[in-house]
């Protein structure tokens, strides 16, 4: 892992959504805390996986990184510099996004060649002739035939559309791609194809991924580092091998135990989680995980834990009073 400055550095970012309601008689309007005080850095060439269940805030965080959402609190830095106008202009080229649903990610009225060069058109890079040339290169890179350029999205399958979406993300030669559950909507057999495509592209171009997923098996295949989110809070951040071998936070441990294993020997009886994820509208006091934690003690209900290194593992961070 290079020690160059991070491409993007988010510092104590929170995203709160004020909801309708409240007033004179109902008290203050409810606030949905989608993301709460998350700090992360994404370095060149690495794949940082962002995992969590639905409602963990991972998509929202991905949108913040991609510049689609303004954080309610916290700062962002691009290549070490605070985000001013010049930085945003660079960031729009350097950070791209791939979405989960291939069927709504492409404008049905546009042919593929226009679709994949749209980022270039928006940022006024190159002439139309240059862009057509680039479209041809990109299409080949993602493994689609040249005649796809003049076709329309409805003529392609889900996996092929996702390739088109990836080609679009590659068009402005980005350094970071935010991939928001890019495989979740695809058939299992296609998933591995797209996964391998993404790996290959990363090796070729040395780009970074912020890979958002709820599927730990996929994460195991692709990630360099893993960040675990629970109810909008970062509960664990570590290198992949370390996290999968010995998770520090009880939530991560439970997630790993829940992954179905085929063909293994002894089934390890893990400690299963009780209850459901609380609503982001009213997070529990203290450690937000305490309502479902098998290790819960008195302190967990009152004092929120800080994200700090686990005992003996300086590069493995966890937010738990009883981390391992």
């Amino acid at each position: 892992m290079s020690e160059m400055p991070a491409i993007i550095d988010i510092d104590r970012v929170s995203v709160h959504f004020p909801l309708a309601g409240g007033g004179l008689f109902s008290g203050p309007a409810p606030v949905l805390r989608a993301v709460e005080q998350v700090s992360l850095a994404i370095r060149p060439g690495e794949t940082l996986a962002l995992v969590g269940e639905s409602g963990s805030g991972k998509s929202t965080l991905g949108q913040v990184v991609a510049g689609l959402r303004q954080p309610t609190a916290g700062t962002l830095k691009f290549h070490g510099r605070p985000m001013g106008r010049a930085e945003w202009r660079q960031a729009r080229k350097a950070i791209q996004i791939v979405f989960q649903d291939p069927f709504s990610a492409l404008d049905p009225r546009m042919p593929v060649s226009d679709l994949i060069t749209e980022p270039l058109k928006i940022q006024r890079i190159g002439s139309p002739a240059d862009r057509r040339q680039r479209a041809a290169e990109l299409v080949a890179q993602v493994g689609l035939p040249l005649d796809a350029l003049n076709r329309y999205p409805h003529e392609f399958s889900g996996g092929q559309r996702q390739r088109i979406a990836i080609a679009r993300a590659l068009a402005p030669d980005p350094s970071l791609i935010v991939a928001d559950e890019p495989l979740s909507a695809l058939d299992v057999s296609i998933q591995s194809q797209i996964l391998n495509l993404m790996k290959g592209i990363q090796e070729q171009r040395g780009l970074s991924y912020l890979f958002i997923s709820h599927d730990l098996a996929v994460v195991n295949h692709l990630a360099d580092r893993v960040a675990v989110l629970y109810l909008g809070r970062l509960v664990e951040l570590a290198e992949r091998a370390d996290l999968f071998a010995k998770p520090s936070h009880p939530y991560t441990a439970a997630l790993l135990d829940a992954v179905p294993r085929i063909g293994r020997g002894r089934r390890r009886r893990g400690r299963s989680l009780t209850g459901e994820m609380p609503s982001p509208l009213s997070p529990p006091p203290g450690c937000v995980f305490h309502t479902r934690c098998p290790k819960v003690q008195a302190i967990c209900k009152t004092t929120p834990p800080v994200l700090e290194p686990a005992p003996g593992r300086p590069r493995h961070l966890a937010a738990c009073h009883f981390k391992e």
Partner: protein
Amino acid sequence: MTALDATSPLVQQAQSVWKLRWKRFRGHRAGMISLGVLILLVLFTLTAGPLAAWFGIDPDATDLLSRYDPPSAGHWLGMDDAGRDELLRLMYGGQISLLVGLVSTLIGGVVGLGIGLCAGYFGGRLDALLMRFTDGMIALPLLPLLIVFGAVDLTKLGFSSEFAHSGAAGFWRVVVIIAVVDWTQMARLVRAATLSLKERDYVLAAKASGASPLYVVAAHILPNVATPIIVAGTLTVGRVILLESVLSFLGFGIVPPTPSWGNMLNNAQELVTTAPALAVYPGLLIFITVIAVNFIGDGLQHAFDPRSNR
């Protein structure tokens, strides 16, 4: 490795979305027939000039001695209640009525489009304000309001008496007042479509690359709203033609001597007893035009979205 040439011939021609739609429209029998009927009607109205020249008739010349003359060789449909050639009046009247339909729809459509886009795209307070206004306008009774607008005396607004009574002023007055009351349907339609479109992932992707609101609207929202707009616009033309005809009939739309299918029935009560045929022709033409336009609208709807219940 040979360089990829983006201009090399493609293996297979793509089927453009519009070609697909035209094919589907062709399959809609009522729509195709109506399209033919409408084209014939337009041609019919346009033959007015050449026909008048050929027969040497002045379409506006009144001759009270020839009132209600039956059809003859020189006047195929006879004379109207002021001694003018009925056929020519029908043709010229058609030009006016169709033109009002078209122009008013365009103006009202643009207004509705603008309001709907702003309300839908920008949301928030602007949306609430615009929608309150739109709902207020929808709540008003259309015809009475049009009559009041139509009865306005232009000289009191500062226009010269000569201009106020000219044919052009009459035409534009009708066009403007109908557009002013009729934009609401388009606005609601466009707003609803914009609201759903602006959340699509491809819009978000464009924004991630730094697209401005103008770009998003022009490149993504408008093309995708085009289809419902076209259908709504077509149906609006029919509605406007009916509105103009009723207004002119009541005396508040196109005023004589300028002919319009509606005002040719001004003194209908009299026509009914003396020359019933004259009472039938103009209304029949309005009826045929509007029903044709409505069928075309239906065909377009079917062409754009074959899932609509048919």
